[in-house]
């Protein structure tokens, strides 16, 4: 189950050759994650709140993606954005975040998604496009109710939403080093500092933690042990979406009964392939499978095996 509270309509102007093109796609974190899970051959139930004219356009677009769509109809309209990519890089023309979910809409969407989540072995709880659209506490309740009933919760969240969901505990957390710094969970991007933050996230409720680091190999904390996720480098056409691929890859493999290490290697492979294409959340199953074997989890903790003596231990005492 993928929980996508506020899908958006993405309108992109592009000009790959002589003539400009207009692309209409459903977007938002949950949608991109769902798309990648499907491309990995796993069925997805997508639970979303949609409304207004944009919502009317989004519903058929989402169904055509191949998801099993469950909708709560909103009183206010869904959001969207217009991007211009004609100059090579993205330029934002307009961004309509939409209205916050009302109390009633939240209740309906929660009931709907909880019912679906309880039937699924894995649930991705995606974030809203703007933090203020959905209260963070909803994620805490969601993770608690799913976790208490044997569901595995996979998230790529930050800020208050991350804090809330951690209170109930998650099976897998993906977060970027920029988000860790922005949230005050890490003071810098050096490995030791990020490692510290990861152990804290783990202690705080995240069973497995992956931190992406832009150009550097991601770090993974698995069963209390730290690894670097090493893989062949591919040239990036669009660096966005690698994180969603990681999250989706992990969810897909775990849903199929795979182990967490294979799941992370698959997520990394999906992410590596995804950035070579423009469409967010896409990736061909056979290319990904071919790449998984080349992704390696290399123990990253340099202090793994020390030698010491009782005398040395006794000498390490310090009084505060």
């Amino acid at each position: 189950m993928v929980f996508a509270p506020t899908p958006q309509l993405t309108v992109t102007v592009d000009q790959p050759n002589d003539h400009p093109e207009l692309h209409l796609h459903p977007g938002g974190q949950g949608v991109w994650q769902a798309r990648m899970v499907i491309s990995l051959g796993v069925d997805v139930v997508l639970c979303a709140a949609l409304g207004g004219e944009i919502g009317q356009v989004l519903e058929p677009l989402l169904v055509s993606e191949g998801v099993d769509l469950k909708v709560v109809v909103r009183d206010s309209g869904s959001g969207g954005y217009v991007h211009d990519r004609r100059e090579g890089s993205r330029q934002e023309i307009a961004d309509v975040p939409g209205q916050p979910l009302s109390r009633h809409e939240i209740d309906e969407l929660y009931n709907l998604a909880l019912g679906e989540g309880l039937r699924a072995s894995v649930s991705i709880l995606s974030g809203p496009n703007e933090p203020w659209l959905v209260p963070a506490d909803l994620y805490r309740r969601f993770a608690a109710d799913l976790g208490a009933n044997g569901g595995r919760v996979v998230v790529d969240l930050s800020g208050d939403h991350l804090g809330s969901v951690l209170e109930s505990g998650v099976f897998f957390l993906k977060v970027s080093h920029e988000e860790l710094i922005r949230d005050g969970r890490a003071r810098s991007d050096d490995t030791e500092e990020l490692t510290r933050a990861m152990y804290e996230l783990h202690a705080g409720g995240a069973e497995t933690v992956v931190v992406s680091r832009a150009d550097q190999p991601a770090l993974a904390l698995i069963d209390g042990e730290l690894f670097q996720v090493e893989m062949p480098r591919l040239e990036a056409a669009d660096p966005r979406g690698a994180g969603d691929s990681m999250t989706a890859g992990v969810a897909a493999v775990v849903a199929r009964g795979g182990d967490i290490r294979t799941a992370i290697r698959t997520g990394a492979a999906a992410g590596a392939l995804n950035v070579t294409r423009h469409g967010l959340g896409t990736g061909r199953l056979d290319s990904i499978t071919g790449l998984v074997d080349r992704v390696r989890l290399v123990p990253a903790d340099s202090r793994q095996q020390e030698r010491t003596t009782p005398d040395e231990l006794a000498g390490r005492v310090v009084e505060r």
Partner: protein
Amino acid sequence: MTVRVLITNDDGIAAPGIQALAWAAQQRGLDVVVAAPMEEASGTSAAMSAMERDGRVVVNDHPLPDLAGVPAYGVAGSPGFITLIALHGAFGPPPSVVLSGVNRGANAGRAVLHSGTVGAAFTAATNGCRAMAVSLDVLSAGEATAASGGVAVDAAARVRDAERHWGTAARVALDLLPRLTSAPMESVLNVNTPDLPHGQLRGVRRGTLASFGQVQMTVAESGHGFVRTSLEEPGQAAQPGTDVALLAAGYASVTAIRAVSEATDIDLTGLDEQP
């Protein structure tokens, strides 16, 4: 020469039992140093675990009430770890005797394998230092009759720590000190006392190890700290002569035990000829 004694426990430096044991040791004129876990560590056996900050073991001064002049430390480590580093001079001159307790709850029978109180004593003995483990049976019938059963347990649960007879256990332990110092180095004395005034003890007796017995442990409950638990194998009458039976009958029990020993009654000849 004054005997130097390390007092430790697995209930944590703030537990009432360690205070009673340290006080009794000081009264007998021993040179006392106290070092114990900062927090509850029941059921940690002889675990070697410690928390460091910037590569240093975290240790706080933790003076005990009414024990001015006795150095006392809270250490972020298990009882076994604390004992090992104490024997290597971490808290001043190495002690020649380790007294572990008074534990809140009995540690009796073969289940003492899991006890942090006994684990500290085993760590000492393995490193050539004499040691005694001392426990108070807080779930014992106490002053209720043996027949009152469950009622007594309910009553015990309501007893405040301050009202328990830690001093009885400490006195029994220190009376045994001459036996300990003349015993072979590898032996540990494991002492259990009912929660009674010293005058109401029926006596002190040597016990054998019950087949399972009773051991204290803590279970961490997510978001709620921990639960103190007495782990017991129930449903069988206490075998006569065991530590468990003596305790139930109102005696303090002393058992002489050893940690890891070699077994000789097993055939390990001709190992290379195996398929």
